[in-house]
């Protein structure tokens, strides 16, 4: 469904990604783990077209999206939950969700909002509350809900566990798993390697802008190098 072919990305003269190859198939959860500054977010941003890849190709369903503009890419079947949630804090929960369905008709948006409230009952309780006044976990749910409002087929998650308590992280990952069960394809970028790999069908390890390992999630969890570097021995 999604494929990175020898993608390199530069920030000015600095190369952040070196010939990255990644594949995400329909219906699976793929996790990308790596340390701070390894290039995880850059990789996701390259997929979104900002910054653009300096060489190589990003393919979505066989179509080359490398040179497309960000808003053109994001308007299609891809949705992203950005790092740090980035909800519209002074807008209400419902307004936030509606922004996610900007290009849908208002009837479609109403329908999808109802679906989101079923998926996240907590959000229904907060329907007309300013989003910025909610707890971190609720904001993360909102960010995911907002991304789902465009009915994407591929969902990109950038560090959904950032700054959340372990019990909330577990809830968020349960939601991600339930989304996969509904047939959503998910590409998860995480520092929380343990959780991310347990959930994943397959995983990649990124180090200094290079993919150094690629295996099934379970295999990576037991891999000696990964255990040492990311799972605390």
């Amino acid at each position, binding site marked *: 469904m999604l494929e990175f072919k020898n993608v390199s990305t530069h920030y000015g003269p600095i190369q952040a990604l070196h010939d990255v190859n990644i594949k995400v198939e329909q219906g699976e959860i793929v996790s990308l783990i790596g340390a701070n500054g390894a290039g995880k977010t850059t990789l996701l941003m390259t997929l*979104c077209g*900002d910054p653009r890849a300096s060489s190589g190709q990003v393919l979505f369903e066989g179509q080359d999206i490398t040179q497309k*503009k*960000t*808003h*053109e*890419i*994001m*308007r*299609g079947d891809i*949705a*992203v939950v*950005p790092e740090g949630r*980035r*909800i*519209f*804090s*002074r*807008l*209400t929960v419902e*307004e936030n969700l*509606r*922004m*996610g369905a*900007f*290009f849908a008709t208002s009837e479609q948006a109403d329908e999808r909002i109802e679906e989101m409230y079923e998926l996240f009952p907590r959000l229904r309780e*907060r329907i*007309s*509350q*300013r989003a910025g*006044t909610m707890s971190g976990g609720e904001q993360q749910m909102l960010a995911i809900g*907002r*991304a789902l409002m*465009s009915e994407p087929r591929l969902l990109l998650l950038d560090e959904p566990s950032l700054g959340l308590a372990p019990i909330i992280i577990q809830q968020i990952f349960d939601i991600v798993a339930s989304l996969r069960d509904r047939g959503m394809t998910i590409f998860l970028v995480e520092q929380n390697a343990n959780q991310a790999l347990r959930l994943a069908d397959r995983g990649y390890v990124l180090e200094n802008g290079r993919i150094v390992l690629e295996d099934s999630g379970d295999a990576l969890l037991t891999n000696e190098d990964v255990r040492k570097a990311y799972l605390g021995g």
Partner: protein
Amino acid sequence: MSSSALKNALISSITFLILAGWMLGVRMEASSQGIQLSLASAKSLQWLYIGVAAVFFSQLFHQAIFGRFKKKPGDASSGFKLSFKLPTMESNPKGFRLMVSFVLAALIIWPFLVTRGSVDLATLALIYIMLGLGLNVVVGLAGLLDLGYVGFYAVGAYSYALLSEQGLGFWTCLPIAGGLAALFGLILGFPVLRLRGDYLAIVTLGFGEIIRLLLNNLTHLTGGPNGISGIAKPTFFGLEFNRKVKDGGWDTMHNFFGYDYSSTHKVIFLYLMAVLLVAITLFVINRLLRMPIGRAWEALREDEIACRSLGLNPTVIKLSAFTIGAGFAGFAGSFFAARQGFISPESFTFIESAIILAIVVLGGMGSQLGVVFAAIIMTVLPELAREFNEYRMLMFGLMMVFMMIWRPQGLLPMNRPHLELKEAS
């Protein structure tokens, strides 16, 4: 009363003495040796002492006086609480319509009961309301700090002035002037809108000045510093409010309806037109706010990256806000030109932009009712305080300081429903 209150009071009064002393305490006198400083007259010194005393005691007893009104947490009954809710279109459509009709009726009857001067002042306030509402879209909603807004106001005014010289009527020119101002907004906005925050503010400031300088120097078109005079007044379906037909209408109002001529009628007519234009402005902007584009403006103000991640094109959204805001400035400008009958670049200096921006900030960014309220205050107060004309800027500054202390969100901040806790059952 603690020692900290005493210390605070001393510091405040000394600060006051230093600041006010320069203005009230000393006097410059020309003598044979040049300019000499001397102590001011006994009367102004007296005022200075009264001021110092007032600052000292108000600081000293501040806690004792104001602490009483402060609400203690969890104690809703103590202190006074002012809470009223205006009906809105959603919550109470019937009440809302009733309120709107009452307000409109009052606005229409009012000018017939008061003096000509008040009506004239109200018309000016209405122009500023229109400008404030337009700039509110750009600054308050889309979060783009535009310091050159007066440029679009000028474009609107000159469009009408020049077109009416060609024999076009006000009502034909109004949409054209609005359209032209919007076009200017679009053209100027395109290169500018990739900038953010301070940079955007500086560049828009520059554009505002460029437009004014162009008007000043394109002498053959705009008359340069002399401006354009004798601009035709608006007509009522071709009926003029002058004593004799001179603005290209087919008859005069008093002749057609057979009543005695009075110059007050023209002022009232202009006022009613301004009411109509403001009503239209409010209606259109409210409609826009309810549409996805209105939400997109606010979302863009909150987080541009998140907007892009949702597939929105920030440039298009910013441009739409900029263009629509400029369009309303154009309407206001053409009405201004029609009302004054004379315009020159003098009317479109940076201070105008600053006043309009102050209206938006004072009212509470994004809040329309706040803008209306602030525009009235900003036009009526200086008029009421005519005698203190020299101290106008001082009072203005004072007001801003008090605003920052007591209502940093603006007079009527934009209202969003807050969480209401339900009683535990």
